[in-house]
């Protein structure tokens, strides 16, 4: 049985005097215990909103969340505010993008880790601080006993993110959501943080939802990948399958736009043309149509539905043909 079952998750933002805006549009996916699932897509496709909706962290006013988020048979969307508070930090943890702004500047690192333990495990401050030092050690922060009495501005960017990971994992949650945890960091640090995350979730059997726009991150970490476009899942596949044979033109474009060391010399990178602002609404078309090299007339008239193609989920009228077929066509 899945640990987390997201079904038809929809988030509509309504600001006074503005048109309602659907940021997440009927998203469904599962996370098995211990599994790492990727949510991939470019800026504004609804990755963060999806994760905040699962955590119950969207603003109370102005955001309408529908659908269901089943966590071990409890629909998180139906819990009261206080019931959800009991779960956050204990059953579900979250790591955010910008480690500096995500830490309270006027409180020591130690207290910021310890407060989770005090809250959910009823520890005394003293015991929680000892435990916090142990956790900082575990996430690779040197000299943890000194660090617990330091403030966020005294730590480096990578160490701050390590501290945030320690907080999110302090109570051994069964699900961790990491929302672009490396985007704000130096490239060398990024790799360290990713391998730390990978090691931690493997050791503890924690399930991980990895949110990123970087397919390199997905390749190194995820078991299964959901590609989001305009608030909807457009393709879902097991990692190797997705990288070997991207079927959705958007996924294909994403992969073609990463530089590859093994590519023949002189081959040009193929970035996706246009930007999210070219989107058309999903109502009666494919939102990607204005940017899609495969677009047909039907794409602008009929919304593509999600369909299973073998073990893969696709939302496309005219998917990219598997490489084998392509070469056959070419040789004819």
């Amino acid at each position, binding site marked *: 049985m899945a640990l987390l079952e997201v079904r038809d998750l929809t988030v509509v933002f309504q600001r006074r005097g503005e048109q309602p805006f659907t940021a997440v549009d009927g998203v469904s996916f599962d996370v098995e215990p211990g599994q790492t699932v990727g949510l991939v897509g470019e800026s504004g496709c609804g990755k963060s909103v999806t994760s905040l909706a699962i955590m119950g962290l969207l603003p109370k006013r102005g955001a309408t969340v529908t659908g269901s988020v089943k966590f071990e048979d409890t629909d998180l969307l139906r819990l009261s505010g206080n019931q959800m508070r009991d779960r956050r*930090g204990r059953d579900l*943890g979250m790591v*955010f993008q910008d480690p500096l702004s995500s830490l309270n500047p006027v*409180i*020591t690192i130690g207290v910021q880790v310890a407060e989770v333990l005090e*809250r959910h495990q009823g520890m005394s401050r003293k015991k929680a601080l000892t435990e916090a030092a142990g956790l900082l050690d575990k996430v690779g922060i040197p000299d943890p006993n000194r660090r617990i009495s330091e*403030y966020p501005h005294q730590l480096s960017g990578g160490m701050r993110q390590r501290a945030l990971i320690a907080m999110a994992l302090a109570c051994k949650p069964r699900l961790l959501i990491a929302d672009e945890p490396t985007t704000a960091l130096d490239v060398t640090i990024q790799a360290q943080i990713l391998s730390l995350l990978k090691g931690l979730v493997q050791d503890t059997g924690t399930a991980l939802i990895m949110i990123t726009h970087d397919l390199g991150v997905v390749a190194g970490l995820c078991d299964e990948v959901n590609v989001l476009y305009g608030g909807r899942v457009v393709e879902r596949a097991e990692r190797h399958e997705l990288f070997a044979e991207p079927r959705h033109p958007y996924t294909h474009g994403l992969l073609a736009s990463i530089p590859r060391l093994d590519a023949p010399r002189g081959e040009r990178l193929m970035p996706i043309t246009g930007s999210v602002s070219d989107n058309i609404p999903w109502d009666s078309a494919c939102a990607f149509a204005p940017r899609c090299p495969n677009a047909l007339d039907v794409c602008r008239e009929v919304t593509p539905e999600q369909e299973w193609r073998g073990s893969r989920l696709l939302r496309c009228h005219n998917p990219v043909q598997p490489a084998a077929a392509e070469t056959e066509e070419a040789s004819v």
Partner: protein
Amino acid sequence: MLRYTVRRLLQMVVVLLVLSLLVFAWLRALPGGPVSALLGERATPESRHDLIVQLGLDQPIFVQYLKFLGRALTGNFGTSNGVQPGTTAMDLFLTRFPATIELSVFAIIIAVVFGIPLGYMAAKRRGGWFDNATVIGSLVGIAVPVFFLAFLLKYIFAVKLGVLPSDSRQSVTDATRVTGFFVLDGIITQEWDAAWDAFRHLILPAIALGTIPFAVVFRITRAAVLDVLDEDYVRTAESKGLTAQLIRRRHVLRNAMLPVVTTIGLQTGALLAGAVLTENVFAFPGVGQALALGFERRDYPVLQLLIMMAAMVYVVVNLLVDLSYALIDPRIRTR
């Protein structure tokens, strides 16, 4: 921290020295003067001349200033010749200063005790009726002249309803004096009647004086809390499942207090202007009242001392603000 404090205090000495010269020159440049104020316009030239010599006003101004400075350094700021003729300026200051401090402290307590919680609640209920009502109320509070508010309060609660006293600091006449702060004195000596009486005398003037600081503290708190509520670290705190009270206390209010502390300092420093008006309406014997009287009667020694003391208070309050800022914000403390 200690070195910083010492440096600031030394700066303060320099500032006060420069200020003393400016005030000295400025007072003597004012139209009128103590002679006309004391003798009236129809005095004979001889009596005017005698007084001028007696007050030392016949000498060049820099000679006057150096003499003043020399005496000031020994603690002698001259003798009042208008507000309380015969009393030294220093004695006059020392008996009146505690009154103004007591009044100001109560005014600031009112501003803080009401301004911060209401500001927080308004921010949490942003756009709701409570928010709108308190924001409008605070605008009114800032716009109403202190003088008018003081009269209004006095008229309603002292004159019409008669529930609170209308003037002076205390009606009890045989109270024991310890610190010069009458409420505190009453508590120390356990003369509860005297303490309560002094407290009742403070209520109306403190409300009149505290209204503007209250409105300002309210607005700054509200704005600061709105800012902090949008911060990523509040979302992190929420993601850890902390209770609403803990998030409010540890994560929201503590950060929101940074601009509020500065505001409280500035308002405290600016309180003297309001105190002049309030003390006059309520015949409250503090330095504000003496300042007004001193100007009327051109009492140079008293004015000189009071203005410099006001400046000193202002500088000290700002130093305290900076120190408490460092106490709240480790980014300043641990550099």
